[in-house]
């Protein structure tokens, strides 16, 4: 664990402790399970975003993709009678296609990630609304899919399956980013794409893979969300989710300039954001202030981090100076 991760963990615990003191309902089993469920749901696509951010890119279409794929998933099952595993496979395939498309536009046509995915945000949202004629896509009354229900909204030993999925993917992501050759290449491409090319890394392939990983995880997340809400209102479903993801990644130490960040950090970032949401509810703060609280905490966190960094630099400098004063009584002077 990096120092940054530890700092974030302390912050999460501190916020949790304060909320508990003010309103002990925070640690009631029901509240914890609900919060954990939300952490799992939001965590999946936050990890997805981190893989793109680490390459110095950005993915802004996450919320729209969740809406579009959610609409398609429910519609395939509810209106077309497609067996759910087939619908799931179709959704995952579509998510990979979207990732490939983004990666291709960014690497081959050299478009900026911000522009490509901003257009994606607008386009997918539009298609989702058009697809249902702006209506809500939902399961018709009496639809019974016990297996699907169990897999995506069920619990095992009291733990929501979204949390288990999040834990599994977070672990895989940690190994992938911090222990594999591919992970090192991701960091390298994000830190200095030119030097990565000159080191023999196929930078275009690495970048495309990052976008595909991102949308693939988003696709899985889309199904979780669709099953969580049971009906998808395409004009509002998933709105601003990409910004949650970016916020979690930034809290977790990912630089938008690319090349740095830790998976443990994003996980803690997701936890912190959900605990803050919970805090707004439990402390009776008007829910309209929700975003303001979140923004303020992120800002304070980032400022504290840079200040702490500067402080450590200064301290190291003083140590070196002290050592110098001791060792060099008579430095060699010219001539």
């Amino acid at each position: 664990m990096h120092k940054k991760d530890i700092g974030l963990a302390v912050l999460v615990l501190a916020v949790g402790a304060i909320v508990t003191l003010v309103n002990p309902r925070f640690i009631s089993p029901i509240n914890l399970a609900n919060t954990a469920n939300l952490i799992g749901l939001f965590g999946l696509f936050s990890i997805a975003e981190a893989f793109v951010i680490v390459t110095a890119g950005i993915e802004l279409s996450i919320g729209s993709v969740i809406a579009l794929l959610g609409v398609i998933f429910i519609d395939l099952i509810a209106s077309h009678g497609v067996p759910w595993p087939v619908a799931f496979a179709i959704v995952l395939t579509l998510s990979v296609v979207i990732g490939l498309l983004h990666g291709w536009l960014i690497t081959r046509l050299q478009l900026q990630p911000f522009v490509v995915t901003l257009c994606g945000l607008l386009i997918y949202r539009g298609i989702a609304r058009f697809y249902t004629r702006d209506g809500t896509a939902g399961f018709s009354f009496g639809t019974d899919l016990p297996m699907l229900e169990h897999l995506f909204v069920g619990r095992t030993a009291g733990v929501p399956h979204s949390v288990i999925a999040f834990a599994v993917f977070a672990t895989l992501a940690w190994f992938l980013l911090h222990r594999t050759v591919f992970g090192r290449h991701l960091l390298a491409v994000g830190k200095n794409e030119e030097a990565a090319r000159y080191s023999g890394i196929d930078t275009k392939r690495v970048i495309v893979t990052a976008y595909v990983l991102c949308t693939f995880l988003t696709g899985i997340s889309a199904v979780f969300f669709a099953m969580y809400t049971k009906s998808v209102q395409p004009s509002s479903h998933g709105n601003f989710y990409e910004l949650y993801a970016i916020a979690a990644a930034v809290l977790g130490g990912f630089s938008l300039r690319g090349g740095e960040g830790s998976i443990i950090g994003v996980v803690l970032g997701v936890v912190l954001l959900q605990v803050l949401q919970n805090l707004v509810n439990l402390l009776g703060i008007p829910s309209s202030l929700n975003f303001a609280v979140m923004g303020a905490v992120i800002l304070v966190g980032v400022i504290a981090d840079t200040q702490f960094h500067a402080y450590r630099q200064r301290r190291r400098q003083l140590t070196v100076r002290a050592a110098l004063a001791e060792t060099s009584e008579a430095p060699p002077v010219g001539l």
Partner: protein
Amino acid sequence: MSAADRISLDLVGITKVYPSAVALNRVSLGIRGGEVVGLIGENGAGKSTLMKVLGGAIAPDEGEIVIDGRSVPHLTPAAALAHGIAFVHQELNPFANLDVAGNVLLGREIRRGPFGFIDQAEMARRVRPLLDMLGARFQPTTPASRLSLADQQLMEIAKALSTNVRLLILDEPTSSLTLSETQRLLAVVRRLRADGVAILFITHRLAEVEEVADRVVGLRDGCNAGELGKGGINRDAMVRLMIGRDVAQFYTPPETRLGEIVLRTRGLRTRANPNTAVDLEVRSGEIVGLAGLVGAGRTELARALFGIDPVHGGQVEINGQPVPSGSVPAAIAAGICLVPEDRKSEGLFLDFSLAQNVMMPSLATIATAGFVNRGAELDRAGHFRSRLAIRARQLDRPVSELSGGNQQKVVLAKWLGLNPKLIILDEPTRGIDVGAKAEVYRLMRDLAEGGAAVLMISSDMEEVIGVSTRVAVMRRGAIAGVLSRKDLTEETILRLAVG
């Protein structure tokens, strides 16, 4: 400039400490109007830090700055400018979207009329005499984007002169200039000295110091290493000053045991020079120098060989096998590697550790099922650190903390794990100190004697002649001629390069 206007500046006992190192340890330096002082020292000796102190960019932790007999406790950049101290930095950053006059008078634009619009014509009129004095062959209205490196340098000097300069600091001003451009620059330095300007000349090119300096100040490991007066300035004395010992056998070409042809290009045409074909052979065991003027197409050739740019036509062969064009991984698989010209942007990941940098191209060789073996990574990196004598205490500290020479060794070390058949080095010793240079040459020699083919691009004549077994000279995208070792002189190379 009247005698009273001439600057008198003394730095006394300047100390500056950074978190990771002591940059300056009680360094003293004096300079007076009308003299040229050469400041020499290996990279990391503290030259840049001393410059920044002079410019007010950083405040020293201890010591005194005395200008015109008065102590200046807090020298700010604005105060430095007001005292007539001006810089020409090693790395030029002209505003390519402005013209020459706009660059020279940046921040001091001349305005006109009630709305304060910029008066282009008046600015051009002010700048023209400066350019004339410097013998520049471009106009105040020339867009900066069209200037060569040498002309950009002149533009920067014009900018310094436009501020009524009394002390001009030149940091590695000739590192990217050709021979004739360098001569032009030195002539400007002499003219300014005659006018009473003090000039602090920082360079690794000792021949230039010898030619133009009145006095030489040496720095070593952040301390004063000594001074040389006018009579005592010669190459050997300066080298001794910089590294504290003699460099024996500085240039030694490899023992020639020529082997098979490793690299052969057949009618290779690069994208930069699509109309000229390059036919070049490099054998195992030799170091071929690739000489030529800046812009002759040498870097473009290297990029094409290494697969950074796709070739426009023709073919590259390694050991008789064609290499697919336009793919770096394919070039590396064929046994080609490249030490690029710009180590900071193309060679290194500055925030990454030494071990991560060194192992970047050969990570796959120490991985099992895609997982990096981190113990092996440190072991291998440690091995290369000692083989190349890279001066870095910790393998897990970022390479940005290393000096230029050690950084360059890291770039070289990246490729050693892959046992390259052809190693291309593009300006491998630019801006690095004498000691590191000697080690780079030693490594090139080792590689050649171990059977690799070495192709070295260099604009440093002394170096090309000193270390090459053969020299190919490029002119306008084509090979103008190949010189064997016995025919190597500056004159024969220049004649081919200029044509």
